[in-house]
């Protein structure tokens, strides 16, 4: 499946990216060619803004060549602009729901990091505003937002049904005057998924952010959500950034949140998210050197998959996580991503439903040629 050339190029990509993540200031010591590749890879992995933030914080910005400085400044500006947009969108959502103050409104993922100022929020490029509300309030929240100018994305009736009946979110919404997309969730995994987290447990432990009208998931749950998103619900192109989130959060909460590690594994089991948590811990440790107590890693072995599955995951995940070399398309990486894509769908729905869904999607694709995508 892999030629030795391809393996060498993948190894070079991995070294470059890991070095830039572990020691951002170290990019000032790279040769011009190494720095060029590092910046291109970090851009591709949506991590250039983060790198820019750390390079500036470390005070080595001025030591870089002009073209590198311009690339980093540009990426940081975009990240800051997106964060600014997201804050405003959250502000407007809270305003639109001001008469529903009893409905808990939980900011998740990028918005949660932004609102709580976790270390991974710095320079993080994020796309959507993810919100969680109790399922019982979902319809009321949706109609309130519609009354204030938000509109659901135009989707086919099939997709609308798919979202509402099977998934854990509504079709994405955006305000008519703005471009930010809101994903309104009532859980962290699809209704049809193999694992069944109880959303009421997540809501019960959520923490209000005083003065904002918003709440965020408890630290354990925030990390478990990130792990679940990556290993049971996500598509691969943003995967490295998500693992970086996980690593940053583990490091941060492990050091600053009393009792975090004692609560972590029992909570994963309680939420039925032990398997994604096992993978999250394993690869955050293995690939990004996340500091995880030995007893937590030991406890997580209870959710270890069967040996052949783990053998395969250990080969696929590192391949799929790291960005493609921009000049050398890797078939091994594409193949690994396709297999993981299939795996995620397998976990998302029972086989008959999956068959029905895929045949519909295949049919749509036949009659309606696909949008051009990246090379």
């Amino acid at each position, binding site marked *: 499946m892999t030629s030795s050339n391809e393996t060498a190029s993948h190894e070079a990509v991995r070294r470059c990216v890991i070095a830039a993540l572990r020691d951002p200031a170290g990019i000032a010591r790279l040769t011009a060619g190494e720095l060029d590749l590092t910046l291109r890879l970090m851009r591709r992995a949506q991590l250039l803004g983060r790198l820019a933030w750390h390079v500036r914080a470390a005070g080595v910005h001025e030591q870089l060549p002009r073209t590198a400085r311009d690339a980093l400044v*540009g990426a940081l500006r975009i990240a800051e602009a997106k964060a600014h947009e997201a804050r405003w969108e959250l502000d407007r959502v809270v305003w639109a729901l001001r008469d529903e103050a009893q409905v808990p409104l939980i900011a998740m993922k990028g918005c949660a990091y932004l609102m709580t100022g976790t270390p991974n929020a710095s320079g993080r490029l994020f796309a959507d505003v993810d919100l969680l509300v109790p399922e019982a309030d979902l319809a009321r929240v949706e109609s309130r937002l519609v009354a204030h100018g938000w509109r659901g994305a135009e989707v086919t009736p099939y997709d609308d049904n798919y979202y509402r009946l099977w998934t854990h979110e509504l079709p994405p919404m955006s305000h008519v005057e703005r471009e930010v997309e809101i994903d309104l969730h009532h859980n962290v995994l699809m209704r049809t998924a193999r694992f069944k987290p109880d959303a009421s447990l997540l809501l019960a432990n959520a923490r209000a952010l005083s003065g904002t009208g918003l709440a965020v998931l408890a630290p354990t749950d925030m990390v478990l959500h990130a792990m679940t998103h990556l290993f049971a619900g996500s598509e691969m192109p943003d995967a490295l950034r998500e693992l970086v989130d996980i690593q940053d959060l583990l490091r941060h909460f492990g050091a600053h949140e009393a009792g975090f590690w004692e609560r972590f594994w029992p909570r994963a089991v309680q939420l039925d998210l032990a398997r994604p948590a096992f993978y999250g811990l394993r690869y955050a440790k293995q690939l990004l050197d996340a500091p995880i107590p030995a007893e937590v890693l030991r406890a997580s072995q209870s959710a270890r998959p069967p040996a052949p599955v783990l053998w395969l995951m250990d080969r696929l995940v590192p391949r799929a996580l790291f960005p493609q070399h*921009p000049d050398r398309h890797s078939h091994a990486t594409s193949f690994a991503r396709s297999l993981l894509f299939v795996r995620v769908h397998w976990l998302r729905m029972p086989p008959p439903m999956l068959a029905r869904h895929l045949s519909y999607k295949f049919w749509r694709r036949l009659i309606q040629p696909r949008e051009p995508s990246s090379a």
Partner: protein
Amino acid sequence: MMASEAGPPRVGALSSAEWSERLAAGRVGVRMGPFDVRLHVAVPSIHAPLQALYADHPMLDGPRVYSCHADLRHTRRLGRPARRNVRFTVDGIAPHEDMPGAQALAVLEWGVNLAIAMRFHGFLMLHAAVLERRGRALLLPAAPGFGKSTLCAALAHRNWRLFSDEFGLLVPGTGSLLPVPRPISLKNQSIEVFRSFAPQAHLGPVIPNTRKGTVAHVKPPAESVAQSELAAPAAWVVFPRWVAGVPLGLEEIGRSEAFMQIATNAFNYEVLGSAAYEAVREVAAASRCFRLVYSDLQEAVEALTALADEDDFQ
């Protein structure tokens, strides 16, 4: 052709065979103002036109941090080259669908514009042509079809220094504009108008049927390219509009109106937020602002030159 002084060699200094070989292998970069663009062009038909249009540009070689890696190649091996589509990618990602091979040169130029506009938010990027005279910059902000590029090409061939026909690169906090001299893209009738206005200028191949109509590129003057490092503060903002058969009109307008028009013409005003506001305010405050209506290119050039030469910068 310019003799190369100290610094990197010029694109035009290579033999056409060597240029073509390096371009096809992705072993060449071109410095365009602050941007170092790596080129990998596996479309041989545009190698010679590219070398002619960029002849005076500094050529870059070897490993370095490039602003972007632009790649243009045919999508399929079947069929005659001119009938095949080309795919533009920047750092391995295709930002848009494949385009007809006959438009390859325009596709590459637009692709590089797009990559710059998407990335370099350290600059406020105004959608404006910019030229310099007497050490001061003239901005010509305008929507497509208003005769901005034609006027820009004409001025660049009448003792104005070309900064750009597309990007007003403003460095926030300095009030200064940076040159990005590149080939000027002319459309439809303006190609012939310009040809008769400046018969000595070099034009690239005429490319019909693009999504912007017929397109041809004007080689930027050598002196403009040679002085790409030299920034200039804004002194004049002119909103041009070409209208058939009208007498020339050059009317001074208020700064607040100019501010609004400059701001709405920027590519990345929203990204920069308050820094963009400050930068545009500075430009409007430092400049005299005008609305220009013209039908005759010669008249418009004379009016703007007179304006620049009469101002005493008090």
